[in-house]
């Protein structure tokens, strides 16, 4: 009679011990893997800062690339080219994306068509960027018979649309119904309500979403490989091959020249700083409400 409780007590203490050990082991594993994940992150940023900062100079921002063997040169044309391509891409992609977001949030809530558009946008978001480049090549470059900045912009614009759509929709759905109903109750037509009430209320979030989409495509190389193609000289002609910062980094990184490697590191640092800075700045301004838009 006495044996049973003793045995069960030792059994239960053994089980408790095992459970507690497992618990601690799992906790340890979780902590260690988080540290493991942070290592490459710190390594990437640290190395980028170290290599990039030591190779940056004024010439990088003011000169165009020089032929192999000559020291110096910069990526001024690539920075400008990226700016032109991205500006056109935003011009094409953001309005359509916001429109689709408005449609989803204000007109298609709960309908099957809305669900289908939302789902397609999500799926389109996961399509590889190189495929967008191929599509833009087939659409524009193959017809025109020459590479062009325009084709690059179209590829990037297509990539921006799904991201902008989904963030716009999410931000619009945070606008309280009562605000919309108040506007509609005053007899303001729906289109005016959407533009002046819903979109304006949600504008900080939408601007942030657009900036995130912008930041995502700003670093893209694959869609530009055979659309914008790159250019060693100054060019702002969207109908011609045009230089872009990520493309230039890609070409220089794979080259066998130390001088070009140096420029690639400098370019990578500039690219990352530009992306981070644009996102952070707009976030700050959007949160402050400065960009909420006057009347």
């Amino acid at each position, binding site marked *: 009679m006495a044996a049973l409780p003793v045995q069960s007590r030792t059994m239960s203490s053994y089980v408790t011990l095992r459970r507690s050990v497992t618990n601690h082991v799992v906790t340890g594993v979780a902590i260690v893997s988080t540290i493991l*994940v942070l290592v490459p992150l710190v390594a990437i940023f640290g190395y980028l800062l170290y290599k990039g900062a030591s190779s940056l100079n004024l010439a990088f921002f003011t000169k165009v690339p020089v032929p192999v063997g000559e020291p110096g040169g910069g990526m001024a044309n690539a920075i400008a080219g990226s700016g032109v391509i991205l500006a056109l891409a935003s011009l094409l992609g953001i*309005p359509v994306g916001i429109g689709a977001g408005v449609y989803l949030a204000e007109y298609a809530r709960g309908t099957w068509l809305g669900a289908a558009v939302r789902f397609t946008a999500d*799926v389109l978001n*996961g*399509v*590889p960027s190189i*495929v967008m480049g191929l599509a833009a090549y087939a659409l524009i470059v193959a017809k025109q018979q020459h590479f062009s900045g325009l084709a690059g912009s179209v590829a990037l614009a297509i990539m921006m649309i799904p991201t902008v759509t989904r963030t716009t929709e999410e931000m619009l759905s945070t606008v309280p119904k009562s605000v919309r109903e108040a506007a509609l109750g005053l007899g303001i037509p729906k289109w005016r309500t959407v533009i002046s009430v819903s979109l304006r209320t949600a504008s900080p979030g939408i601007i942030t979403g657009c900036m995130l989409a912008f930041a995502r495509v700003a670093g893209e190389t694959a869609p530009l490989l055979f659309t914008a193609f790159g250019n060693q000289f100054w060019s702002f002609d969207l109908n011609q091959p045009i230089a872009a910062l990520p493309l230039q980094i890609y070409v220089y990184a*794979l080259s066998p020249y130390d001088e070009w490697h140096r420029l690639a590191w400098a370019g990578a640092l500039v690219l990352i700083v530009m992306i981070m800075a644009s996102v952070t700045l707009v976030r700050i301004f959007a949160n402050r409400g400065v960009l909420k838009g006057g009347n």
Partner: protein
Amino acid sequence: MKEPETIPTSQAPSKPAEATPDTAAPIPKMRAFVSNVAAGPEPATTVGPSVIRNFLQAKSSGRVADGAFTVLMLLCGLSIFAIVILIVFVLVTHSELSIKAFGWHFFATRTWDPVSGDFGALPFIYGTVLSSLLAVCMAVPLALATSIFLLDICPKFLRGPISFLTELLAAIPSVVYGLWGVFVLVPIMRDQAGPILEKYLGWTGFFVEPNFGVGMFTAGVILAIMIFPVISSISRDVMRAVPVNQREAVLALGATRWEMLRIGVLRNARMGIIGSVILGLGRALGETIAVTMVIGNHAGIVKNLFAPGYTLASVIANEFSEATGDLYLSALIEIGLALFLVTIVVNAIARLLVWAVVRENAGGAH
């Protein structure tokens, strides 16, 4: 729970918008309202007419503008379908030559010989699948462990910074990963990690010298770093969507933290976690630039992970600009088409899984 809320709101916007233009009644009421709210008579006279004028203008133009605006927004929404259809259409028309020449054998042939015009995509499919699986195998345990750490173990003051840092990984452009891979990761793989792997795991046949640093394994590592933020952030969302009372119920039965996570959280969120893994897989399948820079770009099907490889995306990136001849170009575009269709299917499955979990738990939580 949500049904009764959504029905009135979907009707509400259309009713007043259509009803008010027919009745002139709101105008005097509104003037009275404005003058009541305003402090004195002077603001009322300045504010009143302009409000009414705006109202009248809006009223007169409301119906046409409303219709036009609705159609415009609908077109924007439908443009997303149009983009998908357009991509498929142009890719199919431009790869017609290769589809006709090789048929389905294209995806089962090992030769890739631009000189004699003989093309088969099997080595690239092998490379894509192998590098992506390697990446998923490395990234998933780390991502899940980090999610658990951030949700349940991490002290509050560290939670924000660490999750911000992991999200930062997602903001680094592919080409920067590639640059870092070429100059930092490749030497490490060649000189430090390679010999260790060869010594202890060489017997498996997966890690055999010569090891030049560039190859399938390095590509897998860099892909793992790149897809980590996707898996981690979505699996965290899914785990967070599990109702709190599930956790509390398991804890109340005397479970340890790990048991609570296993029984209460991971089991409930498993479909969504699988979805997040598939989303990461989808990203790995299509990742181009970083992989192209470190994988070695050599078509072949070998077991050795140190050997250079080639993926669907990297063969397009590497050979498209130099491709001569229509058949060569159309074979590369057919590879792009295959990549597009595969990633569409993979992403669709993943989205459905994540959506199912989040919706189910959102419904059960309230």
